[in-house]
């Protein structure tokens, strides 16, 4: 039964996988990192042969920076999916955060704080709405968050149809500045992931999240207030989307209502989470896996750029990788449940 843990080439023996798993606190994180490793090495070789540079500081930072936006929102998405829900509204929350913050700041450094506070407030409100729809009104999360997405989209486009406002120059350092070679944005990503990891691993909320996702009734009978947990997860997810929005607006200087949807952050974040080995049914997985999922997509991005691969072909490869990864986890999960 411990036989071949992975259907992947170069998969190390169970012991290593187990070590990884305990280290990463997620039954499925191990294979994800192996997938990442394989893709990384393969890309390295290919780019090397193509005479490009892959393992340079510039390139690695570039890959990391490309992971920031999707990484942060996916970290939030991980929470709702672990709770057995999902969130299709993140793309528009991102846009709202970007536009509103840039409008409030309007170039004035003095208003950075208030802008950030306000958009975080909006995040809480949206998350709360999603959570209440899902728990109290028992609306299927797919429909609930899709509906909220449509509403946000409408309000957003009705109020802002173009670049709005302007961020304070200092705020741009979030998007472009850094300590030495290490960009602030990457630090923000790492901090977010660490925070979510800590939350899941060390706080009662995190434990309850896994419990509710793994079996809401069981959790309820054990005294967990499952609705509060689900609502909390949705709030945190929206907050993560807000952070992404802030990061993006710090890069584009002025809020653009299309920034979220154009990035496809709603479906992409869900894809990243499941590629990261978190079960769409909830209760199983973790944020490190998600980070790996995001990095996998970013490394591919980088590879395709360097080879000047047709960007449409990239979508095809992404599709295949997403399905393949999840298929592998599914087989593995079935083996373990026997």
């Amino acid at each position: 039964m411990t036989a071949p843990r992975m259907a992947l080439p170069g998969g190390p023996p169970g012991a290593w996988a187990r070590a990884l798993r305990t280290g990463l606190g997620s039954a499925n994180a191990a294979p994800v990192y192996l997938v990442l490793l394989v893709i990384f090495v393969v890309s390295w070789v290919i780019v090397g042969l193509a005479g490009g540079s892959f393992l340079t500081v510039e390139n690695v930072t570039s890959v990391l920076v490309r992971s920031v936006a999707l990484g942060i929102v996916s970290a939030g998405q991980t929470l709702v999916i672990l709770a057995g829900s999902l969130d299709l509204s993140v793309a528009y929350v991102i846009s709202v955060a970007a536009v509103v913050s840039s409008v409030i700041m309007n170039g004035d450094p003095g208003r950075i704080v208030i802008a950030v506070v306000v958009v975080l407030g909006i995040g809480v409100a949206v998350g709360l709405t999603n959570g209440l729809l899902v728990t109290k009104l028992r609306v299927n999360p797919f429909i609930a968050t899709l509906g909220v997405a449509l509403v946000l989209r409408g309000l957003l486009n009705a109020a802002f149809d173009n670049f709005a406002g302007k961020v304070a120059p200092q705020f741009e350092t979030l998007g472009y500045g850094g300590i030495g070679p290490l960009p602030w944005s990457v630090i923000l990503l790492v901090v977010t992931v660490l925070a979510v990891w800590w939350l899941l691993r060390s706080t009662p909320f995190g434990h309850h999240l896994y419990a509710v996702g793994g079996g809401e009734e069981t959790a309820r009978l054990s005294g967990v207030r499952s609705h509060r947990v689900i609502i909390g997860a949705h709030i945190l997810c929206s907050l993560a989307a807000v952070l992404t929005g802030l990061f993006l607006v710090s890069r584009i200087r002025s809020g653009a209502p299309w920034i979220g949807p154009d990035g496809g952050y709603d479906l992409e974040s869900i894809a990243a989470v499941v590629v990261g080995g978190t079960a769409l049914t909830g209760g199983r997985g973790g944020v490190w896996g998600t980070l790996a999922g995001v990095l996998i997509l970013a490394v591919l991005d980088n590879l395709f750029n360097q080879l000047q691969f047709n960007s449409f072909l990239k979508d095809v490869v992404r599709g295949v990788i997403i399905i393949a990864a999840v298929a592998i986890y599914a087989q593995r999960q079935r083996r373990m449940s026997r």
Partner: protein
Amino acid sequence: MSVGANGAPGDVTRAAPAAPGDEADPWQRRLVRLMRGAGPIFVVLIVLLVLIALKNPRFIQPAVFLASYLKPAAPLAILAAGQLFVIVSGEYDLSVGSLITVTVTSAALLIHGDPALTYPILALLFGIGIGVGLINGTVTTRLHVPSFIATLGMLLILSGGIFYATGGAPRGSLPENFRAFGRAGIEGVPFLGQLPYAVIVLLVVGTVFWLLLHRTNFGQQVFAVGGNARAADLAGIDVAAIRTACFVLSAVSAMIAGVLLGGFAGVSAQVGETYEFQAISAVVLGGATLGGGRGSVPTAIAGALTLQALFTLLNLFGFPAPLRSVVQGVIIVAAVAYASYRLRRSR
């Protein structure tokens, strides 16, 4: 896909059931259940149509109604009817939008304006559709990839693939005999004037799908699989085959919708955009349950027609385009919340 808070059988939204213990004959009971379970959407639809007629009396002239309302509504209605099978069987199909785009763009690419090629290529397209459905079904049922992810991946593969093939923008063109399906109609029909082919196609597909889902063994097994896959499996039902068949039907409906849309307005790269969500919204408006086991073809089609009527109305009242999505969002959430409330009250 598990739906978290809604995972428990008790929580998923359903139409209200007939009251226990009441001993009416089946057909009466069926009628009662249809009225109770599916009534609301028809009421909403009629109200919307009346509002439109009030604002624009021309709307109720048969010719105008057919040409300006039913004809353009047909693709979404057909798509919803197909998606319904997948939803009732307890899955999702997010790949239909890109499949529509693939239909239109590849038809233009391959036919290249040559009328002689229309029918061979149509055949080929349906082949592709069935193939896509089979793959969606197999990946979901045999590789145990949640259909949400399987069809999301398929979405990326299809849209990426077709644009890779065409180099970014549609190429070629659609000859008139292809476009006729979505554009032309039977002329000189008494009081109707022109009877659009699209409407005929909708009637045919609607009837066939209705028979399939509500009048055959297969249909009953779809409900069983969606209602409780484990029980269905233990009763000897070939769950994988049933679900796969549903994905095929959904894909085929997408191909048909694609042919109509391509015919209606010609080649366009965005033609399929957001149709997957429109279709699911329509199905849900029609009272179907995400998670499976509930739904009906007539109400799903009514759901699609309702969306179409809604857009026509908002457009008529010069509603700012953005606010339409607000209305749509509120309506689908309200519909599901209402159904879910009625379900719990019915206990």
